[in-house]
């Protein structure tokens, strides 16, 4: 198994504001978590907070260690609730989309 997983992470619905105003991010995610388990969405979210997000307002993305309620997560266009939510094990070339419903027009 390779050391990293090349995936695409997208932020829309206003979330891009927290990620350098950039919608699409090509991410090379470590394929294993610190404890050796396969990388999950939960791990990705932690990784994003630590390594990608420059904005200090982490709470606008993550609350109580999970994605803030009101932010939808789509894994290859499918609702993450259909995929095991944050326990989903990330595969190479996955497209993970975070869409905020909290922002206005």
């Amino acid at each position, binding site marked *: 198994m390779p050391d990293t997983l090349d995936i695409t992470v997208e932020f829309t619905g206003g979330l891009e504001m927290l990620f350098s105003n950039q919608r699409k991010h090509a991410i090379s995610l470590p394929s294993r978590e610190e404890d050796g388990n396969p990388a999950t969405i939960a791990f990705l979210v932690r990784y994003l907070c630590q390594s990608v997000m420059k904005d200090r307002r982490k709470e606008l993305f993550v609350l109580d260690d999970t994605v803030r309620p009101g932010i939808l997560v789509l894994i290859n266009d499918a609702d993450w609730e259909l995929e095991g939510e944050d326990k989903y094990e990330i595969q190479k070339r996955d497209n993970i989309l975070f869409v905020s419903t*909290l922002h206005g027009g």
Partner: protein
Amino acid sequence: MAPSPCARCKVNRALILRPKNHQRLCKPCFIATFEAEIHHTITTNNLFQRGERIAIGASGGKDSTVLASVLKTLNERHDYGLELILLSIDEGIKGYRDDSLETVKRNAVQYGMELCIIGYDELYGWTMDQVVEQVGKKGNCTYCGVFRRQALDRGAAKLGVRHVVTGHNADDVAETVLMNLLRGDLPRLSRSTSIITSMPSAIAPPKASGPGTSGVIGKNTNHGITDVRRSKPLKYAYEKEIVLYAHHKNLDYFSTECIYSPEAFRGSARTLIKNLEKIRPSSILDVVRSGEDMARLVPGNEDAKRCEGACKSTRSNLPSAEEEEEGAGGCGTSGRSTGGEMAAMEAKLLHNDVASAQVLETEITLPARPRPRNGQAHDRHAHTPFTNEPPSAATSSGGQRHDRIDDDTTPTTPRPKSPTKKRSTTHTLPHPPKTQKPAQKMGQCARCGYLSSQSICKACVLLEGLNKSRPKLAIDIQLDAAEEAGRC
């Protein structure tokens, strides 16, 4: 997790989990179902009439973009025979509204709809940037909210349109229901659940002078519009599904935060709703339905008597939009329970308190809604610390809600000097008159003719204050306004 097939077509892979019933649908089936449900809402509530011109309140955000797209689709599919127009309000905030207006302009092309953009400067002689320059960043949301509430109606009047649809969704309505419950404001709760409201703009012939020096408000009053209806076709649509619909249909929408209240969207009731949804997704519609059920129990509730068609008498039967309007759109940002919006709402609530003190809402709040003084005063203060609890669920706007709670005591009784009273902010708010007039009806603003429970409507009062500070600029404004007039 093994991919599950769509519950409807049984063929495609399910991509969407519907919050209201946990149904798993594929993309085409989700889009079809979503549209079918909006169609159902429209037909069962007789929202539209053939041949009607409808203005879609368009901000370029997800809700109004989805609304425009769905209405266009349904209008063609089911031959509603509607003429759809996009109506946008430009608050005049540089770097905030510009991008979303660009989105609306693209939408107009994409959907082949006429677009009219009306600016605060044109309507009121002030852009929000100018207002902020004048009053500062604190409290400017009050102005924006009050102006915005009237702007859609005035825009519609200008276009000669009698019906405005807005993108309020189920989450917005649920949020409003909860907020009114928390305030114990049943009359408002009753109105806020209505899918149609009426705003009898009853615009009078222009009076000698408009608000303040510019007289801009009175400018567009010759259209003879007496009744602008407001409806919310997305009232039963989950925000989640609206966003998913926009995503799966690749709709072009814009998300932004008002630069004057950048973190407002963290606010209060919205967070509560989203947390409830997380635990039990059906909660949102359940709250909406509960709100409707409670509304029916409110004495004098119009819903029961409502004339469903657009018959002439709707005007007197439909709940007034001015009384109801809140939730989305108060503040330009998310239109949510943003801090700013709450502030705007507070202003309106205060305004309403005055109204109820004057016994406007006859059956509902009749003479001095009896308030047990001591006991209730106690209660109120007992609850005060609770609502004041900062960050977590009920956040940023707690303070403002507070003011409202405190204020609530003023119309009826001289406030008992309470040792527990700690909020000095109350003093800064204008107190409603203690002397109560017997009965006063909803009338028109003496200056601009807009429906108002007071002789001068809130917008004109605010404008008067603003204009006093810069009388010399009036001429410039007139010029601006004339330029703006060419925009539609």
